[in-house]
Each structure stands twice: as C-alpha cells, then as structure tokens.
C-alpha cells in the first residue's frame, strides 16, 4: 500500500509531465498552421506546372527527354522521408515499416537508399545499410533549396545511368489527425502522371517554342521533379506536426485521467488513515472509560 506521500509525489510528477505535453501540443499546433499555409502558397506553381506539362503532351514523346525515358532496369533508388524528432505517435514507424516492406518486395533488385530525417538515418544505419545520402537537421528551416538539393542529386544519378527508378516514401498530410505513408515513383516520370496517355486526344496547344521544345523540357522536367520533392517534404513536415499535436493531446488527456485516478487513491488512503486514527482514539477512550468505571 502506497503511503500518502508516495501518491502525492506521483501526482506531482504526472502534473509536470502534463505541463510539458500540453506545451508541446501548443507548439505543434502553431507550427502546423504555418506548414499548412506554406503548402497552400506553393500550390499555384505546382498546379500550373502540371497544366503546362499536360499541354506539352501532344508534342513530347517518351524519347523527348531522358527523364521521360522508361528503363526496365533493376536498380532502385529509395528516398525515405522521416522527421528528426520523435514524440509524434506512429508517424515515423509507419514510414519505416512501409520502407522495409518495399525493400523486401524489391529483393531481386539493386537498392540504394537516401534517408531524410534523423529517424530514418538511425534506423537504417543500425541495420547496416549502405546509405547513399542523408539529409538531417534542416526541418526547422525547410526551404525550396533543400528540395532542389535532394532532387538534383538523384536526377544526376538517374541521368548518369546509375539508377533506373527513383521512389519517394513519405507521410502524406491528409488532415490534422491523419497522415498516410505513401510511396511514389518519381523517376522515370510516369506518362500518366505528367502527360496524358498516348492515343488519347492530347490537347495540342500549338506553341511557338523559344528556343526549342527540347530546351524547354530540359528546364521544365527537373523543375517539375523539384516541385514534387518540395511538396513531399512539406507534406511530411505538416504531417509531423499534426501527428505530434495528436499524440501530445492524447498524452495530456491520459495524464489528466491518471491524475484523477491518483487523486481518488489519495483521498481513499487519507480517509483510511483518518479512520484508523479515529478508531485508535475511540478505542483508547473506551479503554480509559472502562478502566475508570
């Protein structure tokens, strides 16, 4: 049986934990709002880029640019995006599980890994995987340039013929409470994603190209990839804050329940103690009275 002092100590400890989780929840909520705004403000560019690619469909064949070329090679390049910090529920473990599954599926092929975020790095380093590139500690100041750094590295390898496919695995931001681990093949650019399928009446805009279609694709396609990587990074960041907010909210609630239970225990123990003292006094008084009588 815990003594009164033990229970009091536990209540205090749970209370201070609750203070921390509540503060973390508030911070995550504020950061989440900013992250969501960034996703929204980046959307016009991405939408227009996709439209533009669609308009080029009629004129651009698969041989028009190396990034469109479908190679049936076995070498896969996997970019795994996690956060640096934990305390975000299943946010990172979902991604890590998803990536392991995907790695297992691609068992016959040659794999290279790029890890983004400390959690993925630590996870694959522990498993002795060879990590081609890691990006860590940039989440607080995530900028478009980070997406460029990441995208340019794998595009270079792709164009040098070192890898045949590039996949992203990241958390998609569905809503504040829901993130989904998704895998997206980013290279070669899937025809369906960028350009409508062949045979379909693609809208020919009949552009005048300056300087040339090839030069424009040369500029457009890498930017398209960078934009997609940027979006994946921003979704992951917003998802991280959403997950942390939800996790900390649950933790705060659990702490509250625990405090309630402990308080009841404390009151019971206190009552028992008073009762015992009372009985002692009554018992003593009774004994005195009988002795006197």
């Amino acid at each position, binding site marked *: 049986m815990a003594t009164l002092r033990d229970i009091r100590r536990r209540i205090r400890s749970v209370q201070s934990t609750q203070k921390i989780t509540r503060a973390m929840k508030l911070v995550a909520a504020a950061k989440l709002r900013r992250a969501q705004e960034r996703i929204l*403000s980046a959307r016009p560019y991405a939408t227009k880029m996709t439209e*533009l690619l669609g308009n080029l469909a009629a004129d651009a064949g698969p041989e028009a640019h190396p990034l469109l070329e479908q190679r049936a090679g076995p070498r896969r390049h996997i970019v795994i995006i996690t956060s640096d910090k934990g305390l975000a529920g299943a946010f990172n473990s979902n991604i890590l599980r998803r990536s392991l599954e995907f790695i297992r599926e691609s068992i016959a092929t040659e794999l290279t890994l790029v890890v983004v975020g400390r959690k993925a790095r630590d996870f694959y380093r522990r498993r002795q995987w060879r990590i081609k590139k890691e990006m860590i500690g940039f989440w607080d100041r995530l900028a478009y340039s980070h997406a460029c750094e990441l995208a340019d590295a794998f595009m270079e390898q792709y164009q040098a013929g070192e890898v045949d496919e590039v996949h992203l695995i990241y958390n998609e931001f569905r809503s504040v409470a829901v993130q989904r681990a998704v895998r997206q093949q980013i290279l070669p650019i899937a025809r369906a994603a960028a350009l409508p399928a062949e045979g379909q009446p693609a809208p020919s805009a009949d*552009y005048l*190209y*300056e300087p040339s279609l090839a030069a424009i694709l040369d500029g457009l396609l890498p930017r398209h990839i960078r934009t997609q990587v940027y979006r994946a990074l921003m979704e992951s960041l917003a998802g991280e804050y959403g997950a942390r907010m939800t996790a900390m909210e649950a933790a705060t609630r659990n702490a509250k329940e625990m405090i309630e239970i402990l308080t009841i225990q404390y009151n019971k123990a206190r009552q028992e103690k008073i009762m015992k003292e009372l009985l002692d006094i009554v018992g003593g008084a009774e004994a005195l009275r009988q002795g006197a009588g």
Partner: protein
Amino acid sequence: MALQLELATPTRLVVSEEVDEVVAPGIEGYFGVWPGHAAFLTTLGAGELSSRRGQQVRYLAVAGGFAEVRNDKVVILADAAEQPEEIDRERAERARQRAEQRLSGRSQDAVDFARAAAALARALARLQVSSRAAG
C-alpha cells in the same frame, strides 16, 4: 479585352491580375504580349517583368523559369520573383560586385563563367527594378 497575368514561384503566388500588356525577359530577349498573342512557350532569363494596366505600369524582378502565353493568359513560372520594395539593394549590389570580380578573373572554366554571368544578370535585374521603385 485584357490579359490574365499569373506569376508564381515555387513558394508562392506573386501576381494574379488583369493587365493590358506584359513585357517579359525571354531567354532570347525581351518579348511583349498583347491580347490575341499566339500560343507561345519560352524559358525566362533574368530581368525586369513589366505589366501595364491602363496608364499604370508595375515592375518585378524575375529570374529563370518559364513563360506561357495561351488564350490571352500569361502564366509565368519563375524561379524567383520580387516586387521592387522587397528587393534588398545592398545584397544585390554585393552580388553584382562579386559576379563582376569573378568574370574579370582569368582562370575560369566555362561552368563557373556561365554561373557568374547568370548571377550578374540577376543582380542587375534586381538593381534595375528596385531603382524603379525609388525613382
């Protein structure tokens, strides 16, 4: 009849408005767009983007990206775009000096040279646009 001008960078939508005329820095020189322009797609250099609505002309510094003209809509996807009042003149000035120094140096390979030339073009565009705001 008017043109719809939309200017976006990877991080934000900078301009979305109706205008009467646009002049933009294409890779092969400045080009002007009036309503009824043919469908046109070009890569952008660094320079000054001006748009006129009635008597009012506004200027923006843009660098890199694409411009699409189609059905009286001008869509500009720039790598960077700034309003005159957003430009940090001192920073642009420093960038200009740095680029000029690099260009005047001798032991340059082609890539460095091209990069410095592009940096110079960006700096000059910013300075030009920002002096529009002052003037």
